[in-house]
């Protein structure tokens, strides 16, 4: 799709540390689409499940012409008791932008009906940043010159202790997407350690097969987050040039495999700013919608990350997805899917997060670092002698758990550190 009015991000950065051979390969991948593998074809070892969910989502997304919707469609959508897919499409359209305040009111009502005034807190823990993929917008991409690191089990435990001492009870374990450097056993051991210190353990790692999700569930993980980045597979192909992450359909079915593997819940998102955000927002929500119909017991949540600057490329930005648009997307999500959790990460500013928890968001991170092994120095101010690995992206909201807890309580909301049992 050509959008003449919008500047595109400049993603390609050549590091002076790359060998000539590596540079050649990088440029070939960037400039010659034929040098790249077929992104719709599974790699050996990738499980294929029979599922009709993808087809349903993509059919709706492809036929979505958001310019077709008018103010009266939006008004009608806001008047309906139950928000249909058509209503949701209207709420995501440009025609809904003037109705943002009304949408926020309705969203707040739905949030309070389903979640009361509670806001959950969690923190991510990156245990490794090795990555085998070339995703052009990501700080961990294999051509980006950053300090790589993988924590040992002792280091993981030390980090977890520091985080647990701050009062946090839910942790999200993340790795770069490298099966070679961070294999299932390594991640499983991290989950077992996490179960000692936290009530709830989530995972955001490379997509794996059903039996591997089952193993990780047995190790203590119960929630799997996989971001599809963009649901436009043609656009996806131009952004994920190398590695297993390039395989778009295997990633799409990750949540379904995780649920079949026994995970209690799954989280979804597109990375807004990569492609047409209205279509991506539609597809993200429909991905949840159709999977919920198929797995009604599962808990589901949506995130809403926007592109952020990374190390060696501080110009990356979310293009046309400004805070107003992000707010519109979140209100539309809430009205269409009143029962799902909505997570807003530290990519967004403190002011935005303070505002959005009153309208639609039910979960926020606090005490965040997207680097590796730096919690002790960040939490205690101690100048740790340990090695640290570089960050995936720059965060905006750096509030600690203590500050976040207080800020949420000051807004008249109830911060919650745990509402979960591993059974």
């Amino acid at each position, binding site marked *: 799709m050509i959008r003449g009015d919008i500047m595109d991000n400049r993603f390609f950065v050549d590091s002076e540390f790359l060998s000539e051979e590596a540079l050649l390969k990088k440029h070939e991948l960037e400039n010659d689409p034929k040098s790249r593998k077929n992104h719709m074809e599974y790699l050996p070892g990738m499980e294929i499940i029979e599922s009709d969910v993808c087809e349903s989502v993509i059919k709706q997304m492809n036929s979505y012409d958001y310019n077709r919707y008018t103010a009266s469609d939006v008004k009608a959508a806001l008047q309906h008791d139950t928000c249909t897919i058509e209503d949701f499409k209207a709420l995501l359209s440009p025609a809904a932008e003037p109705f943002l305040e009304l949408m926020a009111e309705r969203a707040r009502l739905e949030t*309070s*009906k*389903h*979640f*009361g*005034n*509670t806001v959950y807190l969690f923190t991510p823990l990156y245990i490794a940043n090795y990555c085998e993929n070339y995703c052009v917008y990501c700080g961990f991409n294999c051509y980006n010159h950053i300090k790589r690191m993988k924590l040992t089990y002792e280091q993981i435990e030390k980090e977890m202790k520091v985080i647990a001492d701050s*009062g946090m*009870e839910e942790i999200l374990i993340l790795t770069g997407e490298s099966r070679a450097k961070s294999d299932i056993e390594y991640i499983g051991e991290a989950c077992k350690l996490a179960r000692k210190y936290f*009530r709830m353990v989530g995972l955001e790692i490379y997509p794996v097969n059903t039996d591997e999700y089952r193993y990780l569930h047995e190790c203590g993980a119960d929630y799997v987050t996989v971001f599809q980045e963009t649901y436009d597979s043609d656009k996806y192909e131009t952004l994920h040039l190398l590695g297993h992450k390039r395989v778009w359909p295997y990633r799409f079915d990750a949540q379904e495999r995780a649920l079949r593997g026994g995970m209690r819940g799954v989280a979804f998102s597109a990375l807004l700013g990569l492609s047409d955000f209205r279509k991506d927002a539609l597809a993200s929500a429909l991905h949840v919608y159709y999977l*919920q119909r198929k797995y*009604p*017991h*599962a*808990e*589901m949540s949506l995130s809403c990350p926007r592109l952020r600057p990374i190390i060696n490329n501080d110009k990356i930005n979310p293009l046309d997805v400004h805070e107003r648009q992000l707010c519109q997307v979140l209100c539309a999500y809430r009205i269409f899917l009143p*029962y799902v959790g909505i997570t807003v990460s530290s990519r967004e500013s403190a002011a935005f997060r303070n505002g959005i928890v009153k309208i639609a968001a039910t979960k926020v991170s606090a005490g965040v670092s997207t680097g590796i092994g730096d919690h002790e120095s960040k939490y205690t101010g101690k100048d740790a002698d340990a090695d640290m690995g570089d960050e995936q992206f720059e965060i905006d909201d750096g509030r600690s758990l203590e500050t976040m807890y207080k800020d949420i309580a000051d807004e008249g909301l*109830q911060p*919650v*550190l*745990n*509402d*979960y*049992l591993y*059974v």
Partner: protein
Amino acid sequence: MKEDKLVIGGHEFNSRFILGSGKYSMKLIDAAIKDAGAEIITLAVRRANTKEQENILDYIPEGITLLPNTSGARNAEEAVRIARLARELGCGNFVKVEIMRDSKYLLPDNAETVKATEILAKEGFVVLPYMYPDLNVARDLANAGAASVMPLASPIGSNKGLATKEFIQILIDEIDLPIIVDAGIGRPSQACEAMEMGAAAIMANTALATAGDLPMMASAFKSAIEAGRRAYLAGLGRMLTRGAAASDPLTGFLHD
């Protein structure tokens, strides 16, 4: 008039308002106890499973009966495990069984609920099962050893009131256990109506949690529940709902 107590599993209560657990805040618990007079407070075990600075357990004063619930359970086995954990945590012998296989409407799974009730009643729990109002299931629950039956009025959190009114009335008429109306009560008037029908108690949460003035809404519920109860005891059931009663008997002319 003899004292009107709510009796559940041999325990007596003066209040017929029970605080649910869905939305919680410390302010809500405070208002429920002080202004609504609650003596029973539901507690999600998964929420109490915490080390956080504001543990919900710390906010429950002495003399309040805790009603731990099994929310998060997707089948009977999980509900039983959560109930046992509640007992280990020191939450007492009461348990509200709630089993959901649906994350959208949170409707209870009646079949699994019967199974869990049977197991837990045998283990000495005072079991209060949350259920979809179905007479056959209510009988099964009674036979399984339930101490009360808790039919839903409408989908949880919906504040839509007595959508299942006819079926709850059947349970009240046919089941020899206290019928506690749970879920969906959005207004004091709806709580009052359920009490007029003969419900033994009302459980509510969202209606209070989402109110503008929490303490005032809590006291409104208290008054409504007491009014409904008095109306029921006063014999509302004998009032005619169609036509008017003649002041002289219609059959007064009959002589032999």
